[in-house]
């Protein structure tokens, strides 16, 4: 026990002397969370629009004003031929064009169907479908208002046509902001990057400078060395969780709806896996540079892609979905989102928690065995 304590103290003394480390542990996560928190934003706020108004009447202008008033659209260009539409869309100046044909007003006053054309740039499919939704919403509420006005003008009580109106209420993230959804998972990402890299570096550094060999000659047992090396990084990881959570709560104003204690506990389980992975990297790397490369390209990039952080797992082909089952980050992100946004309780997340526990124990244990074998 005293030997382990000795190693832990030594590890903290070394950390204290490394000024870069302060940056990595305290500054980098805060900066990353803030920058990513703003950058990882898939909301569509300003839609650049071109208008080809062939009708040029009060009604057509009134119709265009509906878009301006919604706050999402900006009318960047008024064009008078299709060539210009192509140019505007190709150059990326506008995302879509509203074409109002001749007789728009006439059709409406005659109580006939008035078609309008909308031309979209579909290269960013996600964004375009969001914008199409906005456009449809505006068009349908406008035609509803025409119907109501028409009834008034006739002076007769039209038979009321019953229609279905969905009254949508959005829970957990009522403004549908992607930031609210992304920030908790960025926290998972940062925790993974920092603990994995620091852990692997701490051991490879000793191998590089030759102190690991010195330690092998001493009566230190491998398990003592591993515990002594892992504990400081569990503590650092824990501090990072608190730092990142504070930024999330106080900077972005995203409160934790569920149990804070469960959140910290699941973070601890997750850190067991990342430290295990870090330890594994240290057994296959000779230099710190190598460890860095392996950590980034072989481990972290696939983890990020397959964790559901960026792309929804449900949309992946079946065989890729199976791959995601072995990604601990996947479970951690699920827990983070559920606890922070929905206030889910532990009882609703038992499978994820168990998987984290399982991975944590298995990875850390297997890596320790490998490390022990390499030491002897």
């Amino acid at each position: 026990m005293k030997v382990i304590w000795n190693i832990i103290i030594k590890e903290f003394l070394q950390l204290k002397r490394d000024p870069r480390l302060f940056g990595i542990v305290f500054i980098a996560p805060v900066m990353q969370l803030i920058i990513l928190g703003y950058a990882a934003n898939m909301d569509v706020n300003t839609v650049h629009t071109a208008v080809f108004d062939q009708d040029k009447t009060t009604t057509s202008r009134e119709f265009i004003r509906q878009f301006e008033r919604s706050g999402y659209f900006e009318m960047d260009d008024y064009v008078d031929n299709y060539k210009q539409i192509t140019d505007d869309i190709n150059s990326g100046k506008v995302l879509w064009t509203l074409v109002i044909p001749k007789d728009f007003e006439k059709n409406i006053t005659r109580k006939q169907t008035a078609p309008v054309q909308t031309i979209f740039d579909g290269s960013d499919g996600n964004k375009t479908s969001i914008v199409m939704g906005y456009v449809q919403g505006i068009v349908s509420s406008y035609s509803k208002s025409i119907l109501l006005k028409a009834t008034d003008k006739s002076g007769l009580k039209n038979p009321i046509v019953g229609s279905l109106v969905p009254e949508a209420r959005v829970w957990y993230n009522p403004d549908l902001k992607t930031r609210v959804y992304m920030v908790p998972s960025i926290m998972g990402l940062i925790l993974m990057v920092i603990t994995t890299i620091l852990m692997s570096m701490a051991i490879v550094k000793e191998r590089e400078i030759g102190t690991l060999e010195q330690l092998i000659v001493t009566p230190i047992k491998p398990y003592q060395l591993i515990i002594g090396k892992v504990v400081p990084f569990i503590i650092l990881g824990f501090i990072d969780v608190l730092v990142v959570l504070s930024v999330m709560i106080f900077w972005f104003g995203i409160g934790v709806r569920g149990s804070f204690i469960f959140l910290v506990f699941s973070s601890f389980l997750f850190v067991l896996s990342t430290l295990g992975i870090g330890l594994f990297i240290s057994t296959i790397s000779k230099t710190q540079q190598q460890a860095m490369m392996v950590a980034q390209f072989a481990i972290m990039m696939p983890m990020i892609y397959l964790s559901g952080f960026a792309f929804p797992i449900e949309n992946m082909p079946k065989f890729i979905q199976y791959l995601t089952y072995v990604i601990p980050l996947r479970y951690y992100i699920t827990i983070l989102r559920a606890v922070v946004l929905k206030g889910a309780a532990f009882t609703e997340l038992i499978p994820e928690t168990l998987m984290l526990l399982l991975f944590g124990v298995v990875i850390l244990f297997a890596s320790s065995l490998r490390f022990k074998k390499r030491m002897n």
Partner: protein
Amino acid sequence: MYSIEVNKLTKVFGKFVAVNGISFNVNQGEIFGFLGANGAGKSTAIRMLCGILEPTSGDAILGGYSVMNQPDKVKTQIGYMSQKFSLYNDLTVEENINFFGGVYGLYNHKLEERKKWVLKVAFLEGQKHLLTASLPGGIKQRLALAIAVIHEPKIVFLDEPTGGVDPISRRNFWDLINELSLSGVTVFVTTHYLDEAEFCNTITLINAGNIIASGSSKELKTKYLTNTILEVECDKVVSALDILSKQKWIDETSIFGNYIHINVKDENVGRILVKKVLTEQNSINISRLDKIVPTLEDVFIYLLEKDENKNAE
């Protein structure tokens, strides 16, 4: 009982035999020098004895414990200092002492007592708060050795301990090694400085994984080298060396500064022949021609070449 008993110790990497069944014994308190060229198997052997590498076969008994069967016990008996500086540069002198002391189970009084000793030996009294990285090379080396024996082991292994250290620090370092040896610690040291080898009680020469000679410095010079070494001082040293190395009657030719050493079977015949080929046939002036006591270097060059020739055949 010997302090170290090595019995048919072997290490094979794939098909490469790094250490080929070597056996030797070392007495308690002896300074045992392990010499050889780079890649001769020195470091592999020392790493097996320290428990860093597992032997392929054979065994060694250190302080009464077997490397193969009781590696944990062996570790409490030995200290080790490698060619790489193996303290933590980013810790202070005292933090290094506390860490390694603690690793060896030294606490409180015992630790303070040994800390005093280490600081004294490393010339660092009153400077324990210095960062280890800031120490000069020679002092670092002393500190590393003192810490390697902080737990007062019976045996200490030094793997090329004086690499990259200035001559005065090297001499001071050897004084420290002598002190350790006098206090009863067995010192097992590898080096390729032959002047350092002269300080060893026993020298063992290893080549291509085999021991090719062993004994005290004096024994090596007399027992293995029956020929005579003549030192030739002459002008046109380069062409003289060229001429002499082609002579069939000379076993060995090597250059030492401005002199040429030749290895001949008979002193008088040698003197006559040297004069004949250099002065009479090539008109090179010989200013001096002496029989000398061979240096260890003479012996080693002779033994290594003999061994290479034998391996080639």
